[in-house]
C-alpha cells in the first residue's frame, strides 16, 4: 500500500504523525499540569486556608479571653467591646471554615470547637455580669479562674486539635500534589519517550520508504538514461549511416536520371523498330495464309493415302483368310497322303508304287504348307507395314492438322503481333514521355533528397546532443543513487 503513496503523501503523513505526537504530548502535558495545579490549588485554597482560619480562630479566642481579662481588671467598655468583637470575629472564622470543604474529622472538631466556645461564652457572660454587679475584681478573677479558664483550655485544645488536623490535611495535600506532579512528570517523560520512539520509527520507515521509492525511481532513471544513451548512440550511428545512404541515394538518383534519359532515347528507337516490325508482321501474315492453303492440300493427299492403306490392310486380311484355306487344304492333303501311305504299306508289295505316289503327294503338301507359312509371314509383314504406315500416316494427318491449327494460330499471332507492335509503338512513345516526366521528377527527388540529407545531418547533430544529455543524465542518476544509497557506491 505504501508503494502507491506519492512522495508528498508520505512526507505529509510523516509530518502529520509528528504533529499528532506533539499534540498528544502537549495535551498530556496540559492535563498533567492542570492536575498538578488543581492539587496545589486544593492545598493552597483549602488546607492552607483552613490552617490559617484555624489560626485566626485561635487568635480570636485568645483576643476574646484577653479582652475578658482586661474587662475584669478594668471593667471598661473598650475591653468589653473588644470582647464582643473578638467573639464576632471568632464566629466569622467559624462561618468561613463552615464554608470550606472539610473532612469528617474536621467537621467533628469544628462542631466541638463551636460547642466549647458556646460553653465558654456562657461562662464569660456570667463572669461579665458578675463583674458588672457589685462584686469585686478578685471574685470575678476567681470566678474567671475557676469557671472560664478550664473552658478556655478546652476550647484551645479543640482548636489545637483542629489545627493539627488541618495541618495533617495540608501535609497530605502537599504530598498528594507532589505525587501528582511527579506522576505528571513521569507521564510526560514517558509520553515524550513514546513520541520520540514513534517519531524515530516513523522517520526510519519514511526514510526507508522514500529511499526505496526514490532509489527505485533513480534506478529507473539510470536505466532509462542508459537506454536513452544507447538509443542516442544507435540513432547517431543510424543517422550517420542514413547520411551515407543519402549520399549513395543522391549518386544513384543521378545515375537513374542519366538512365532515364537513355531510356527515353531507347524508347524512340523502339518506336521506330516497332514500325518496321509491324510491316514485317503483315508480310508474315500473308505468307502464313499461303502456307495454310498448301498444308490443306497436303492434308487431303494424306487422307487419300490413309484410305488406300486401309484398303490395302483389308485386302491383306482377305489374302490371309484365303491362305488359311490353302494351308488347311495342304494339311488335309498331307493327312490323306499319310493315310494313303499307310494304306499302301498295308497293301504290301502291290501298294509300293502307290506308296511312292502318296509320298510324293505328301511332300508336295509339305511344300505347300511351308509356302503357306512363308506367305503367312509375308502377309503378316505387309499387315504390320500397313498398320505402321496407317499409324504413321494418321500421325502425319494429326501433325498436318496440328500444323494447320498452328498456322491458324500463327496467323492469329501475326495479327496480334501487328496489333501488339502498334501498342508497343504507342507504349514506347508513352514510355518516352513518361521517362521525360520521370527525369523531371527524379530531379525534384534529388533536391528533396538533398534536403533530407541536410535534415539528416541536423538529426545527427541532435542525436549527438541527445547522447551528451543522456550521458549527463546517467551521471546525475548515479550521483543521486550515491546520495540516497551510499553503500551502493561501495
Amino acid at each position, binding site marked *: 500500500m505504501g508503494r502507491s503513496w506519492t512522495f508528498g503523501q508520505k512526507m505529509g503523513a510523516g509530518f502529520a504523525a509528528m504533529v499528532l505526537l506533539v499534540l498528544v504530548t502537549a495535551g498530556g502535558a496540559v492535563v498533567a499540569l492542570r492536575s498538578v495545579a488543581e492539587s496545589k490549588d486544593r492545598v493552597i485554597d483549602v488546607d492552607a486556608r483552613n490552617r490559617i482560619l484555624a489560626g485566626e480562630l485561635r487568635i480570636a479566642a485568645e483576643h476574646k479571653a484577653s479582652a475578658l481579662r482586661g474587662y475584669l481588671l478594668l471593667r471598661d467598655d473598650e475591653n468589653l467591646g473588644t470582647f464582643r468583637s473578638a467573639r464576632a470575629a471568632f464566629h466569622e472564622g467559624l462561618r468561613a471554615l463552615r464554608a470550606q470543604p472539610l473532612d469528617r474529622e474536621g467537621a467533628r472538631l469544628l462542631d466541638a470547637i463551636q460547642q466549647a466556645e458556646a460553653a465558654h461564652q456562657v461562662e464569660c457572660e456570667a463572669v461579665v455580669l458578675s463583674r458588672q454587679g457589685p462584686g469585686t475584681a478578685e471574685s470575678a478573677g476567681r470566678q474567671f479562674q475557676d469557671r472560664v479558664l478550664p473552658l478556655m483550655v478546652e476550647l484551645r485544645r479543640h482548636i489545637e486539635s483542629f489545627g493539627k488536623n488541618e495541618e495533617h490535611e495540608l501535609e497530605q495535600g502537599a504530598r498528594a500534589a507532589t505525587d501528582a506532579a511527579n506522576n505528571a512528570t513521569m507521564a510526560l517523560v514517558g509520553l515524550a519517550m513514546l513520541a520520540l520512539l514513534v517519531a524515530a520509527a516513523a522517520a526510519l520507515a519514511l526514510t526507508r520508504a522514500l529511499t526505496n521509492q526514490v532509489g527505485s525511481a533513480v534506478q529507473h532513471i539510470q536505466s532509462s538514461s542508459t537506454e536513452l544513451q544507447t538509443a542516442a548512440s544507435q540513432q547517431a550511428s543510424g543517422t550517420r549511416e542514413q547520411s551515407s545512404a543519402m549520399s549513395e541515394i543522391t549518386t544513384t538518383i543521378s545515375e537513374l536520371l542519366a538512365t532515364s534519359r537513355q531510356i527515353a532515347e531507347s524508347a524512340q528507337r523502339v518506336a521506330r523498330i516497332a514500325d518496321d516490325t509491324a510491316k514485317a508482321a503483315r508480310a508474315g501474315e500473308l505468307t502464313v495464309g499461303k502456307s495454310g492453303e498448301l498444308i490443306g492440300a497436303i492434308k487431303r493427299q494424306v487422307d487419300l493415302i490413309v484410305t488406300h492403306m486401309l484398303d490395302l490392310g483389308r485386302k491383306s486380311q482377305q489374302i490371309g483368310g484365303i491362305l488359311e484355306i490353302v494351308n488347311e487344304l495342304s*494339311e*488335309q492333303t498331307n*493327312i490323306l497322303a*499319310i*493315310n494313303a*501311305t*499307310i*494304306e499302301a*504299306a*498295308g497293301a504290301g*508289295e502291290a501298294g*509300293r508304287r502307290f*506308296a*511312292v505316289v502318296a*509320298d*510324293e503327294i*505328301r511332300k*508336295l503338301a*509339305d*511344300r505347300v504348307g511351308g509356302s503357306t507359312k512363308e506367305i503367312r509371314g509375308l502377309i503378316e509383314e505387309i499387315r504390320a507395314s500397313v498398320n505402321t504406315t496407317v499409324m504413321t500416316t494418321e500421325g502425319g494427318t494429326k501433325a498436318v492438322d496440328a500444323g494447320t491449327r498452328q498456322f491458324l494460330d500463327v496467323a492469329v499471332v501475326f495479327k496480334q503481333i501487328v496489333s501488339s507492335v502498334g501498342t508497343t509503338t504507342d507504349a514506347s512513345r508513352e514510355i518516352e514521355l513518361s521517362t521525360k516526366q520521370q527525369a523531371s521528377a527524379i530531379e525534384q527527388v534529388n533536391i528533396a533528397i538533398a534536403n533530407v540529407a541536410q535534415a539528416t545531418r541536423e538529426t545527427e547533430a541532435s542525436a549527438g546532443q541527445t547522447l551528451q544529455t543522456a550521458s549527463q543524465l546517467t551521471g546525475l542518476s548515479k550521483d543521486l543513487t550515491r546520495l540516497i544509497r551510499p553503500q551502493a557506491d561501495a
Partner: protein
Amino acid sequence: MSVPGDLVSKATALRDAFDASFALPRSQSAAEVVQLLAIRVGSHRYALRLGDLGGMIARPTIVPVPASAPGIIGIAGVHGDIVPAYLLSSLLGHTDDTDPPSWMALCRAPDVVGLCFSGLEGSLRPPRAALHRAAVGAQATAPPRPFVTEAVTTDAGVLPVIAVPVLIATIRQRAGAAREP
C-alpha cells in the same frame, strides 16, 4: 507388279524337283527303307512304324466314357466304327503332356485302337540300316521304356520307335485284367 527373284527361283526349284521325281529312277526298294511317322508326345519325340498303323485322324472327336482301363480317355467314331481312344503319353508314362490330343493313330489289330498324341511332325523314310535296337537301361536315370525296343537315327537325332504290337498287347492285357472281378 514384279515377283521377287528368290521366289521365282524357289518356284523353279520346286518345279524341277517335281519333274525330276518322274525322270529319276526309283532309288530305293521297300526292303531298303523303313517308313516311319515322327510324332511328339508332350516334350518327347517318338516314331511309329507306318506298317503298324491303319490310319491317321486329325483333331479327333473323343467322347469321354467311365472306364477303369489305364490310359483310356474315351471313344471316337471312325468310319462307322466305335474306337477306344488311349492317351499315348499316359501309356508311355509321361506326365508332362498337358496339351489336348490333336492326332489319333489307328492301330491294326484284331480290334482297332486309337492312340492319341499332341503333335505330328512328318513322315520319315530312313534306310533300314539306320534302325537299331534301343539302348535299354543305357542311362541309369532314364525311365524304363518297355514299349520301345528300337530307335532310328535321323538328321534331327535319335528317335525311339514305339513297338505298337507290344503296346496293343499290353492294352488288351490290362483291359482284360480290368474286366475280371
